[in-house]
């Protein structure tokens, strides 16, 4: 299994004791599979995404990506792992305003030892793919919200990650832009053969995913997805 999550728990300490956010979540996702995670605010969707993306550490449980449990890695190897295997798209695009579009896409390559011309070529390719080949030298401030998010998508894919995570990628976009970005994510995921996990409140976006999980009070549930066009090979564990 490309992504295997077992008994994942996350608590936050409070004055009145630990506050459970994730409760014994288990999940398995194959390479090439796309999953949408929905649920009410505070249900733990983003926390799950941060744990999968190794941006936060679980209280207990394990996450394995391509057989590697990243939380067993030292901090510096964990960063490398994230750099190489995980791509992020956030609701807020988090582009560096001081850098151009191309540079923003290239940001993750700064920490690697990739061939400069190769990564440039790929960045240009990705930007062409997301329809921004004419805006390479533009600054984020000169782009629309949808365009910025497309740059973020390109940036997330620069290292051909195994896992592409998107946290409310369309949350800040208008409906048309949201549709474009959602479709782009799915298309690129297919092309790159990544695991795509998207946290969203948008039923419209979730409907485009072959598999939808619902997060409720820290636990996962599977929803049937009649419009799913994806691969139905996922196995979902509900606890």
């Amino acid at each position: 299994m490309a992504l295997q999550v077992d008994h994942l728990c996350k608590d936050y300490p409070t004055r009145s004791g630990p506050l459970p956010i994730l409760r014994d979540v288990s999940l398995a996702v194959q390479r090439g599979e796309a999953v949408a995670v929905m649920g009410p605010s505070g249900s733990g969707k983003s926390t799950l995404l941060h744990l999968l993306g190794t941006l936060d550490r679980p209280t207990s449980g394990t996450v394995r990506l391509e057989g590697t449990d990243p939380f067993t890695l030292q901090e510096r190897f964990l960063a490398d792992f994230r750099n190489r295997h995980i791509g992020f798209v956030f609701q807020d695009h988090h582009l560096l305003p001081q850098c151009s579009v191309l540079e923003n896409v290239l940001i993750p390559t700064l920490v690697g030892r990739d061939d400069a011309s190769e990564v440039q070529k790929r960045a240009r390719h990705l930007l062409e793919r997301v329809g921004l080949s004419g805006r390479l030298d533009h600054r984020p401030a000169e782009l629309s919200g949808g365009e910025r998010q497309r740059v973020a998508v390109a940036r997330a894919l620069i290292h051909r990650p195994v896992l592409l995570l998107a946290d409310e990628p369309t949350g800040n976009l208008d409906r048309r832009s949201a549709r474009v970005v959602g479709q782009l994510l799915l298309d690129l995921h297919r092309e790159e053969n990544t695991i795509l996990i998207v946290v969203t409140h948008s039923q419209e976006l979730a409907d485009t995913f072959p598999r939808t999980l619902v997060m409720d009070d820290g636990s996962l549930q599977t929803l049937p997805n009649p419009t799913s066009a994806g691969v139905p090979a996922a196995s979902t564990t509900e606890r």
Partner: protein
Amino acid sequence: MTTFRLILRNLLFHWRGNLAVFLGVVVGTAVLTGALLVGDSLRGSLRDLTLRRLGWVDEALIAPRFFREGLAEELQSSQSAERLCPAILLQATATVKGPDDAERSLRGVTVMGVDRRFFPDRDFPAPAAGKGSPASAWLNSTLARELKVYKGDRIALRLQKPSDVPRESLLGRRSSEEVVNELTFDVANVLTPDDPVDPFSLRPNLDAPRTAFVPLDVLQTKLNLPGKINALLVGKPTATLADDLNQHLQLEDWGLVLHDPEERVRSLFARLDTNRDDQLEPDEWRGKLPRNLLAALPPAPTAAISRTALSAFYHSQRNYLSLESTQLLLEQPVADAALVAAKDSGLRAAPTLVYLANTIGKVSYAECAAGGPTPLFQGIPYSIVAALDPAQPSPLGVVRPAGVTQLRDDEILLADWKDSPLHAKVGDDVFLRYFEPEHHGEPREAVAHFRLAGFVPLAGGAADPDLTPAFPGVTDKLSMTDWNPPFPYDNSRIRSGDANEKYWEAYRTTPKAYVTLAAGQRLWGSRFGKLTSVRLAAANGNTTKAAGEFRQTLRAQLKPQDGGFVFQKLKTDALAASAGGTDFSMLFLSFSFFLIAAALLLVGLLVRLNLDRRASEIGLLMATGFRRSRIVVVLLAEGAILAAVGAAVGTVVAVLYAGLLVRFLGAVWPGGTLTSFLQPHVGVASLVYGALGSFGVSLLTIVLCVLLFGRVAPSALLAGQTTTERVGPSRRGGSWALWLTIGSAVGAVILLACSPYVADDEMKASTFFGSGLLLLTACLGAVWVWMHRTRPGTVVGHGWWGVGRLGVRNAARHPLRSLLTCGLLAAAAFLVVAVEAFRREPATAETTRTSPSGGFVLLAETDLPLFQDLNSDQGRADLLNQLETRLLGKLAFADREAQRADMSGVLGQTHFYAFRVRAGDDASCLNLFQPTRPRLLGVPAGLLDRGGFRFASTDAGTPEEGDNPWQILRRDGAAVPVFGEQNTVVWMLHSGQGKDFPVPDEAGTPRPLHIDGLLQDSVFQSGLLLSEDHFLRLYPNQEGYNFFLIETPPEQADRVKELLEIGLADRGVEVTRTSDRLASYLAVENTYLTTFQALGGLGLVLGSLGLGVVLLRGVWERRGELALLRALGFRRLKLGWLVLAENGFLLLLGLGAGAASALVAVAPHLFGGGGQVPWLQLLALFGVVLVVGLAAGAVAVIGTLRAPLIPALRRE
């Protein structure tokens, strides 16, 4: 895209935040480097001053005696130096008569007798204005300005008459007219301030020199010292200078005369052979030669005496050499060298001391039993007594009486003089009345008793008037009644034609009595010497040849330094001293501590604020796989670039800042003495060290900020969070702080409660200071505890009060951040208040013995030494006579007498304590040069007995010393015990209690002075104090008194001052109130405090700006919160109040805690009346801090509240 490019992009994009950090680094660098540059400026200015003052002179020989001017030519011809200039240097008081005939005087004038060798390219000396006009003098600008004289005016210079004979010896002349020489000069030229010679001075100090340049030959003539000088100025000396000097020094330079028979004949002929026919006619020798000499000339002369006959007489009767000194007494090193040289030359030596007995008397035992001395009529008046070894063979000894094989020290031999009025017989008790060989004021008579061992026939060695060195006024007189000695002399005791007069006619200065050398030296030996001559006899009788050999041997034996013939390396020493007594770099660095700390804190806070603003950016980088270390490197690289550029720019700003500080220092320095020479100097080393130091500490601060950024999860960073919110209960942090607070508070109370029972002042002060610090700790601990309380009180109320309370609550959101700024403000306020409390004004009313004034109302200093005792009747009469002379013609006789009687009454209530002074560097804080040879004061025995003054510490070992620490100065030991003023010893001499401080003695040999006591705030800041006895052992040739402490009722002070200024005008007196002197010292201390306060205040202001940044950061973090409140209907004004309440609370908390704790710490000082806190100034300073802090907060609020509402709300 590269990392470097990313760094540059970051720097440019976040330019506002980075600019703030950059400015912080600039300020820190400017302050740090500026402090170093102030040190450079002071050192550089002192160095410039030194070089300007010394001009071309590198070394100088300033001898305590006059020597041949020819020595300069001899050294010049030996090419010992590129430039050599002979000179006479004397201290003088300049006076000028004003149009109203009133006299204006100026003391501290250096008279330089020089010639064209000093002014090679100028028309010096200018010819006298006309026949009968006085010679011309050139004045430097300071002297002319202060004396208000111009070209063409006439001035008088009062200086000390040179005297070969020590003035404090029996034959020294001490009266005013014999000590003071008044020379008149026309002012031919006044040098302009920009003239390179104008500032010339051999002893650079801060005071502008007052110099009168007079023609050397004129000065020599006026001083009756033709061809003599006392100084040699040298430019660019060669390495052989000292050796060359040694080679060329003659016995004459030492003031030595070697008599041999031929020289005696030559001398007699030179004196008596007026017609220069090489024989003495009867009218030339009659009455002028002792009769016994004439009788001894074969055959007895009736007509002319030929040179041959006289020579034959001397070679047969007095065929010996005699080494004598123009000082009359041979200095001990010279006497020692002479005896060694005699031995080396194979000569037999007879050390000899002659003295004058006022009376040789006889005591009858019956009268002795009755307790009364022998009446005078039974004695012989004014007789020479010789102390020598009578057993020496001819021609050095005397014929011993039969039965006397060895003369004992308590025995005396009398000349067998048939007309002697003594009528003594062998075995009689014979006494000698004589004046003590050393004295201060009037000579004191003493008596010594001897047993008469026998009579010496007046023949051969016992009929030798040459045993007595020549002394003008006595030995050159044809009759005893004509004597004019400097001591009290009663010529009525000599009657014309009596036995004594006849003896004088026949034998002149031939001794009438002989005692052993040991006995004579015990009675009449003094610090000036113990021999009047060393007589030498050659075994083969060839005295002419022996004289030549002995002369050479003695020259080789004499050590130039024993005679003061030492070239002082003036320029080298002065340049070393120009490094300064106080390290101003370190001083200003410590003064600037809070300013630097505040700047760094500001840098840290700004860096942190920038990081906060860039949290999501950092989170994104982490999300994309940047390691934390990599991010840290990127951030540090940005910081390093900012620090580097900031340090570089700050270094430039530092030059401007240092210029301002230098101006400030010049403006606030008492007396304005610094403004004339203090100029900004920029040392490359300081720039480099300052820039590197600032870069280093700034970078360190940035590193700490970046590292302390913590291990915030990337997800939190992405959400804009830069701190991990404390959510769980954390009693641990609050608990230790609580205990610390309680412990500190209890400790403070205990110390306060104990303080009344602490006896020692210093311990008491420490107790209060400790309690203040504990209180400060308790205050800050309480703040910490308050901020960490788990159940804060509910904020209730509404309107401004309620919002204000909420603001105060917000101060506790980030306890560490708040405590840091609050603590910095508190610490700065603590120091500012504590230091300000030590600003002092002299307590004019404090005249108790244990006060800094020692109970003395006045002190006086003179240019020329005083030899009379102002406490004696004679000394006081001299003062009153001077007063009366001054009043002559101004008041009627009766009024003059009344005034004299009145002043006499004032003097009756006044007591003077006279100190000997060894001139040296002013070691007080008024001098910025490093004192290497501090001025030494010889404390009179009277003051040692009297005691007084306040001591910071002493080495008292006995109860007596504890009661009166001055007794410590009487201790004998390898090191001389000395006292010094505490500040002088610690800060200027860089020494301390119990340490040794070496000073050169008269011969230049380093002698350790052991610091056995530290005076507190005394009038003795300018030097070190040692007992007069020890002083004279170190400097036996130092004569007279130049420093006086005056005990008089305070209400009489002005009258005593007036009397002294009239009575001692010719000595260049300056009478000062002790309170004024103390005030001048305190003024410097207060200047340092002012500077510290100015920089500390600036630090406080900068600290309050830091608080503003903290606030800005807090507001930034809470921008969503504030937006929400706005959405809820809060007006911007209310929100502003919310933030300002938080800011104001922290400001007041810091200032209040610091100031209150400081007031506790300095309470004893304040209650003891030691300090006058300028409350208004302090309040104003704190007011400025408060305003700046609040303004910074207001800027933060305005900036934040201007932000659009919706985006800020979304943050929530």
